[in-house]
């Protein structure tokens, strides 16, 4: 499925804004992303599987607050940076 990557993580994707990843849950998609782009998952999800404080993940336009949500192959995932200053 299609995953949109924020600017801060495009070092991992070779500057690609849109990439493909597969999985039946968001957790599996993030694991697939990490296989393709090693290290990317830990920058946005912590070791307790929490979405980091200044990251936002949307599935078909709706924000999710956990990574155990089920997905369909037609879903679109958008990963964004929340505001963080200083």
């Amino acid at each position, binding site marked *: 499925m299609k995953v949109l990557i924020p600017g*801060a*993580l495009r070092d991992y994707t070779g500057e690609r804004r849109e990439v493909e990843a597969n999985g039946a849950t968001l957790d599996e998609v993030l694991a697939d992303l990490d296989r393709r782009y090693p290290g990317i998952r*830990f*920058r946005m999800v912590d*070791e*307790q599987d929490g979405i*980091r404080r200044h990251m936002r993940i949307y599935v078909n336009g709706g924000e999710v607050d956990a990574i155990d949500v089920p997905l369909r192959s037609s879903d679109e995932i958008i990963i964004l*940076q929340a505001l963080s*200053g*200083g």
Partner: protein
Amino acid sequence: MYAKSLVNPVPSAATGRVALLVATRKGAFILSTDSSRRAWATRGPMFFGHIVHHMVLDPRPVAKNARTLLVAVRTGHLGPSVFRSTDMGKNWQEAARPPAFPKVEPGQEGQHKGRVVDHTFWLSPGHSGEPGTWYAGTSPQGLFRSEDGGDTWAPVAGFNDNPMYLQWTGGEKDGTPDGPKLHSIQIDPRDARHLYIGMSSGGVFESLDEGASWKPLNAGCAADFLPVPNPEYGHDPHCMRLHPLAPDILYQQNHCGIYRMERAAATWVRIGANMPKKIGDIGFPLVLHPRDTRTVWVFPMDGGSVWPRTSPGGKPAAYMTHNAGKSWQRQDAGLPQRQGWFTVKRQAMTADAHDPVGVYFGTTSGEVWASRNEGAKWTCIAEHLPHIYAVEAVELPR
């Protein structure tokens, strides 16, 4: 068991080129010079926009003229990581497994409730006899170990999962404004299993079994922000150093003064009591002379009223002792004589190994100052850098 004098021969003074590894809130820089240490060139930023807490070069070569450079980074948005370079920062590889606490499954929370590493704060190369071994200290307080040059990191369970962890470390309120930290990881050069750590807060702790078990080592050290006198732990060491030539001599700049310990005595002695009263003995960094166990530099900060943490009176100065703290000498030549409100963080002062020793410090206002003569005269060698967290001096290959 403990030695009161040198256990290693005094090494020859360094004669090569010097570089300063500068970690800032917005990236990393390398300042380099020739062996005269007169003119400096700035390279960077590397990891531009990332918060870089520490950049450290392994003294143990991995190949001819190749040593591992590690950097601890995070950003305001992204989680913490560690990157590695073997060509002095031209190319970087991310750690395959950065420092992270174990995942806690629901129902298994116990005392720790699923801790998350906010940032890696301190990096220390391991013992010279254990090539590839590194230690990392994190915020919140965690100790991690790598045995493959910083590529994969594992928790040191003897500390992180110690039944006393919560009592030793206190809560979030007991940390620094940037969060509680584990720092000052020191390895006894005679014994790879003999470790010391410092925690803000928590105090100084010692392990004799490579981190499997730990004991507090805070006797004699004040903790006047705690309600009980002479607590066993809960102190706030800002920077603790073990002298590599005499590893049973420890120094620390603490929240409550400057201390020295002869390990056999197991009691900290407040050598900061001999500082001028109007200056006090509060500060963050503490730097050792590489060949003289009695010579130490500190950079006092104002710890009065609401703790401004700036140079007392707006007149920045280093202070040096040549006699293990019996007396202190002010060193402010070349520094601003007024309206200089420097803040120098605990990792932001360092020394090279030349003769005379070069001493360096970075400020939170982005200046790097250098002295080629052991603090007798200071020169600003970089300005307008971001907020500086750490400065490490290294000698470059010829």
